[in-house]
């Protein structure tokens, strides 16, 4: 075994890998086009400001007040109202997935309002759907205030007004929130998938023995296999950047160099992880299953992309630290929206650097053990 790592040999391996990618336009197109397409599509699709909520209303009062209440709901823009004659079972629309919420106005509602008596209006929310239940519940307090204002003219003038200023996304634009995070998630999956098969494929085809009989050092093989894909990933990120800035109009407050360094470390860490999977499994199908398992769901659910990490139980907050995407999420949201500087991002950058080195080392060591029985 040669003790010195020769960059020339690593370059040769990289060159061979580039030829591989080049020969397979399908994969190349997917690697570049897919992230762009996904970010574009789902940037458009994700909207957390829920509207058009199907609401079934049972009005057993039919008074002026109850009609006004229904109008309040209708004019809010959040609800699609459907009135139904009172049935024995008011949960029926929820049961049959026809509505997300049900509003039950009690008889004599109007009379109670005039005499200022308590007249509870029942709201039933479909508690099976996590993406909307909480939001609908949140809207209800606002609707209650609006209804009181309209029906009973109780303009609540508080002593102290809370003046909220939303920093970094003043209009609460869903796109600003999702697109940078989405690019992180998509890149992570693409990265891990791209590299997870490369070494396993050589083993399955038997060309690995050939490669190993040459003087190439394992580290050279690993680096050579990584380099072209990292380049590909960086290029894809460049495309996504253009899409985010010029199509979605997302501001970029931070430093481009920081963005580049962060992306580089992030992509490297996932590609190195993919490579590690490939070295460890040596079987393409197994590698693929594995890559999908650790690449797909943890990335989307544990990275803080949609569900904030602070909401999780303490143990899981620490667990998320092993996913590079969790760190990159801080970097990418930071440089896009907040204009965070290097000093504030030291921890995430170091974490990703550490993981890249760690995965590469582990891959090389696994590799060595395989080679020298």
């Amino acid at each position: 075994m040669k003790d010195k790592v020769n960059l020339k040999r690593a370059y040769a391996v990289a060159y061979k890998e580039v030829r591989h990618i080049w020969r397979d336009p399908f994969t190349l197109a997917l690697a570049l086009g897919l992230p762009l397409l996904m970010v574009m599509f789902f940037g458009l699709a994700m909207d957390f400001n829920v509207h058009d909520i199907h609401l079934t209303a049972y009005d057993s009062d039919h008074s002026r007040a109850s009609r006004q209440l229904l109008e309040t709901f209708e004019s809010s823009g959040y609800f699609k109202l459907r009135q139904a004659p009172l049935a024995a079972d008011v949960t029926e629309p929820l049961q049959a997935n026809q509505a997300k919420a049900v509003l039950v106005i009690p008889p004599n509602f109007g009379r109670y309002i005039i005499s200022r008596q308590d007249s509870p209006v029942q709201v039933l929310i479909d508690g099976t759907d996590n993406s909307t239940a909480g939001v609908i519940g949140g809207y209800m307090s606002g609707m209650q205030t609006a209804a009181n204002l309209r029906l009973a003219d109780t303009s609540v003038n508080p002593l102290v007004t809370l003046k909220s200023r939303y920093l970094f996304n003043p209009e609460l634009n869903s796109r600003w929130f999702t697109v940078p995070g989405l690019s992180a998630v998509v890149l992570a999956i693409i990265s891990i998938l791209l590299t997870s098969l490369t070494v396993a494929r050589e083993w399955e085809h038997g060309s690995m023995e050939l490669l190993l009989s040459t003087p190439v050092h394992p580290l050279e093989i690993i680096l050579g296999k990584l380099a072209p894909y990292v380049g590909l990933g960086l290029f894809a990120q460049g495309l996504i950047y253009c899409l985010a800035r010029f199509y979605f109009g997302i501001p970029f407050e931070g430093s481009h160099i920081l963005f580049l360094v962060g992306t580089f470390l992030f992509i490297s860490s996932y590609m190195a992880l993919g490579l590690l999977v490939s070295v460890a499994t040596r079987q393409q199908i197994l590698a693929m299953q594995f890559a999908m398992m650790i690449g797909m769901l943890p990335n989307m659910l544990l990275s803080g992309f949609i569900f904030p990490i602070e909401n999780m139980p303490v143990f899981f907050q620490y667990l998320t630290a092993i996913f590079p995407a969790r760190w990159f999420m801080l970097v990418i949201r930071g440089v896009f929206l907040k204009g965070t500087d290097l000093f504030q991002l030291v921890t995430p950058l170091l974490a990703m650097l550490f993981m890249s080195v760690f995965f590469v080392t582990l891959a090389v060591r696994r590799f060595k053990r395989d080679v020298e029985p």
Partner: protein
Amino acid sequence: MKLNPTILGFFKKELVQTLRDKRMRIMLFVMPVIQMTIFGVAISTETRNIKLAAVYQPNDYLMERITQRCYSSQWYVPAKNLTGNDPFKWIQSGQADAVLIAPEKGLTHDAGNAHSTGSTGSGQGGASLQLLIDSSNITKGQAIENYTQAILSQVLGETYHLKNQDPPVRFTVRYLYNPEMKTSVFMVPSVLCMILLMVTFILSSSSIAREKEAGTMETLLSSPATITEIMLGKSLPFVALGMADFPLVIAVAVFGFGVPMRGSVLLLLFCAFIFMCNTVALGVLFSTFVKNLQQSAMGGFLFIFPAIQLSGVLYPVENMPWLLKYCAYLDPIMYFVNLMRNIMLKGGDFQVVAFNAGALVVMGAFAITIAAKRFHQTLN
């Protein structure tokens, strides 16, 4: 009826090939359970642990009360290790999620003034309290405002003994099927669908892709086995594997997490069977388009990622632009999530089950027909 020996042979071969590797067995039977456990416990849509900082003079007791009330609620934690004294920087660096900033003369002073003169509302002598919120996560940002507003009204009411004006219109809100809003009840059925899709779709599509890559597909096609036999032999084993996985994961969901099982277990199993047939059919169809495993992996992503995104689990389908809403109708996960939620949590409604299961059947039949056509074409 006698079992077709060719298909039986395929069946055995695929099962042996898939299951002979210990790591694959772990991947198929242990990983889904682990993943479901993690996601079921970890993910919560309720905003908690908001890092709150407050800027006020030491003698401003009203501010003190408000902040203390915030910290003693379950939602806030004090922001620690603040550097410098620029609230904007605290939020920018993530040291705080929100900062309360008292007015110049102190909130106690301003609010006291407003109370004694009887003036309310900002601009009319009322006091105003500034709240800076990190809205880089918009749902969290909105939650912070709502919580803070609620605590503010509560503290003011107590401090100035404002008479408790109950508004005449009062909503009593109840969450049906999941009254405590338990995350596991939300997440487990939906995460389960995603995991099952990944297992069945990837296994079936990569099994054919591997034969193509290794060049053994030609051998298979030139053998006396008919196309139907090859296709069934390549898909049934994975349906079987999926069906072996399903009860395992469901058992963990029900007994481990206490996810209710209000509907019929048999109906659920039947629906799961339809779902697996559907995803395996899609996997087979998909594999007719690829040449090797690398393409199959990238293309698998092309299908699975959108399928998860459009399923309505992460964010509501109702809001999507119309084009994507129609795309969601092609998403098997969406139908199966509907089925799972309806049967497990709501007890099963005939129309819902019939519609969603029917859609899966139609889609699966369509996929397998086209796949068969494409197989014939490659043959000629």
